[in-house]
């Protein structure tokens, strides 16, 4: 298990998790979301292959109201 930051909260995940697994932690198995890791945008095409390391900061954002 490793620790990562997911949307500002510390989480424990399996060390071989990918971004799709991590989205599943938030209940986002199918759904519209976008990801940045360590303040870098990660395209959807890389969700399965992008390595996730200890203490990575992941932002997983969804559509929201806005002005």
């Amino acid at each position, binding site marked *: 298990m490793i620790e990562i930051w997911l*949307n*500002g909260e510390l989480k424990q995940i399996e060390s071989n998790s990918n971004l799709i697994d991590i989205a599943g932690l*938030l209940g*986002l198995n199918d*759904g*519209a*979301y*976008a*990801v*940045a890791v360590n*303040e*870098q*945008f990660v*395209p*959807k095409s890389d969700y399965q292959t992008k390595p996730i390391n200890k203490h990575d900061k992941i*932002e*997983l*954002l*969804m*559509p*929201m*109201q*806005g*002005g």
Partner: protein
Amino acid sequence: MSENDLLLAGKKIKSRLLIGSALYPSPKIMQQAISASESEIVTVSLRRQNPQAGGGNDFWELLKSLDLNILPNTAGCHSAKEAIVTAKMARELFNTNWIKLEVIGDEYNLQPDPFGLVEATKELISQGFEVFPYCTDDLVLAQKLVECGCKILMPWGAPIGTGKGLINPFALNTLRNRLPDITLIVDAGIGVPSHAAQALEMGFDAVLLNTAVAQATDPVAMAKAFKFACQAGRLAYQSGVIPERDIAKPSTPVVGQPFWHQDN
């Protein structure tokens, strides 16, 4: 395309009212108000999942059902870097290269950080984004953004959500006169429909507002009021507004005026 249409980032837009999707009392009222406004462009944001705040897939499905042009924003970004990353996420999520670029410099008045805004604009334009920068009414900042490649500018009327209207019409008028070929959209601070009409009467191409409709007592009716105000403002601009004068000029003919005698 009629002369009333707005050509915005390659799209023909009939309505000169852009509208936000936030702060409505309910999703249903949001949907009804946006429909009543007849706006063709709606702003959205990206946020961490928060079931209490709404948003998420239900919101997204509802908004998609309106079949409007989506303009994602980078609200809450305080640096060019944050704004650039958010814009890239928005592009993928909403499948558009349009971005309302906000780089905030002050927590109280939420005014743009002009330096971060120019930095982010340069980078995003180089990456193929159509940038709609939320800026102040500063002419030099506007010119810098145009030099970066912006074809659209969105200067504030007043700080976001204040409802104060156009607090510096002189500066806005300057932008209009000095940047005749740039699409100018007054964004933020609009409170009542007459503010929107005023902007359009001045020759601004459109207005963008959210709080004034969403937080009105009757958002659906207010959305209609803004729709009419934008139509009135645009028609007035096209009709040729009379110049302002300091000295009165009678509208009733002077010749034939009764009870007048020439003094000998």
